């Protein structure tokens, strides 16, 4: 019973982080049509910049605010100078270009902060453990479980109720028509990429207190968020949420029923979904 609870909570907290990363990836794909291989590196950059800002301001909360915003600057430059050139071009060019950015960011971080790992403490308010149904559980992870749905709900309302959100959705449906009715599509693209970067970097900053920071931390999460996005359906918002929860829970329970082979579970899930429902769980077929 307690094992069930602990694994569920672990799965949920990891799933919520995965959701934050994946929702940015899927939004960028939905609007810009680019699958960003460097998305995990933006996640990593968010974590490092948060750490740096924390040292500067001596506050986790300011780090959480400032770090991801600095990453957004990098994201905007990346969109303006690089991605812009490959819209509508072959998938291999897009993947390779964003892969090149991944190499630059990962090694760049290694040059600045070194290849050793760094540790960030959670803020005093969220440190320590709390009793959940008689079980001690880290407060910080419970905080993550709450923050995920909160940001998800905010995003959903943004896309459905605000003028900007509706404009973005219009541009993703038909960018030529959107341009025709006077929407500044290039601006929308930059804004969406900035939003995606912010979500990834925020995920990184939130992940910082619960995992150690290493330059390769983006590589694991990029593949997992690819899996989440494909499982949920490319460009689908609820899909990213469901996919992230599914993957998070599968992984936390995986060691129990698959032993050493639990590492293979995400890929097995990816392959099965692609074979049975190539367009993901939450997207209708073409």
């Amino acid at each position: 019973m307690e094992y069930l609870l602990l694994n569920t909570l672990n799965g949920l907290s990891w799933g919520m982080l995965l959701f934050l990363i994946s929702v940015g990836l899927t939004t960028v794909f939905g609007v810009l049509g680019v699958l960003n291989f460097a998305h995990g590196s933006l996640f990593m950059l968010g974590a490092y910049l948060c750490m740096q800002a924390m040292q500067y301001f001596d506050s986790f909360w300011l780090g959480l605010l400032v770090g991801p915003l600095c990453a957004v600057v990098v994201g905007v430059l990346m969109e303006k100078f690089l991605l812009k050139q490959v819209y509508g071009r072959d998938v291999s060019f897009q993947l390779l270009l964003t892969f090149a950015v991944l190499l630059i960011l990962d090694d760049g971080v290694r040059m600045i902060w070194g290849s050793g790992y760094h540790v960030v403490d959670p803020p005093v308010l969220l440190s320590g453990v709390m009793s959940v149904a008689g079980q001690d559980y880290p407060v910080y992870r419970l905080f993550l479980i709450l923050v995920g749905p909160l940001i998800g709900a905010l995003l959903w309302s943004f896309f459905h109720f605000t003028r900007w959100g509706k404009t973005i959705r219009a541009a993703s449906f038909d960018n030529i028509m959107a341009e025709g009715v006077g929407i500044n599509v290039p601006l929308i693209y930059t804004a969406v990429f900035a939003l995606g970067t912010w979500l990834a970097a925020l995920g990184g900053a939130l992940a910082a207190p619960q995992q150690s920071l290493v330059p390769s931390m983006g590589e694991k999460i990029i593949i997992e968020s690819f899996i989440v996005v494909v499982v949920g359906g490319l460009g689908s918002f609820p899909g990213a949420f469901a996919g992230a929860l599914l993957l998070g829970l599968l992984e936390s329970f995986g060691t129990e029923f698959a032993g050493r082979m639990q590492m293979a579970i995400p890929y097995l899930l990816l392959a099965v979904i692609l074979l049975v429902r190539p367009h993901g769980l939450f997207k209708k077929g073409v």
Partner: protein
Amino acid sequence: MKIQARINLAGPILLVLLLFAAPLVIPIYWVMILSEILIMGLMAVSFNLLLGYTGLLSFGQGAFFGLGAYTAALLLQAGHDNLFLILSAGMLVAFLGSLVIGFFSVRLDEIFFAMITLGFGMLFFSIAHNWRDVTGGSDGLPVFSSPTLNLFGNQLTFYTPNSMYYLILVSVLVGLGLLRVIVQSPFGLILKALRENKQRVSFVGGNVKRLRIAAFTISGTFTGLAGVLFCVFNTMATPGFMHWSFSAKPVIMSVIGGTGVFLGPLFGAGIFFVLEQIIIQFTENWMFFLGVVLVPIVLFFPEGVFGTLLNKFFKQEIK
């Protein structure tokens, strides 16, 4: 037209002569680098049968490289050192592996194809990484013996870097030759048609799925050959061969060299390794600079460096 034909033939012949003469003039260190370029070049050219010819971006090519390498390592560890046995067993296993993965993967296109091959590749990686009794886990399988070749009663071994180089050179040239024949055959032409428009191929009676599986297995089998050679060269098979970051290498090499020319990926491999050697002379952060070099290549050389040069100087028709 005549001059064109002569250029077409003269280039490869000159290249082969240079490759055979290379160990006589360049230092051992570079003979080793050249060996690695040839092996990865073979992998990249076989990979390009999918990307450049058939229009399929595979991100799991490392799986077949690894299958070849592990087969060779297991055979060598078990005391079988017959070169032909090792080469054909490695290719056979890679063939079977690519037949299975291909069967499931080729029904998908574009990004979905890239994702499913990535998934299968990582599945193989997980198996190699965790099945310690057979694969040695993350330590990999070391090989302490070198294959032997019985040639007209002479027992040849490949312990020196130069003899190893010639073994690799001959095997890679045979592999490239076979691939070249395949690419120029009517089958190769159909693959290009598939890349351009698979609906039309299917309308005129082509079985798209079967053709794609054929391309996938041919590509996988020759990648397996590259894997066998690398295991023998490196005296090691490691799970890293099957990781997606290794599968990204032939993609990078093909795009650097040019996916539109048969030998483009081989030159891409050469550029990749020489670049790496130059960069590590003055910094250990070579990935950073690889990224910096890749960006303009992707943006401004859509036909790759080799493809663009050929196009510019010889008005070579790009496929």
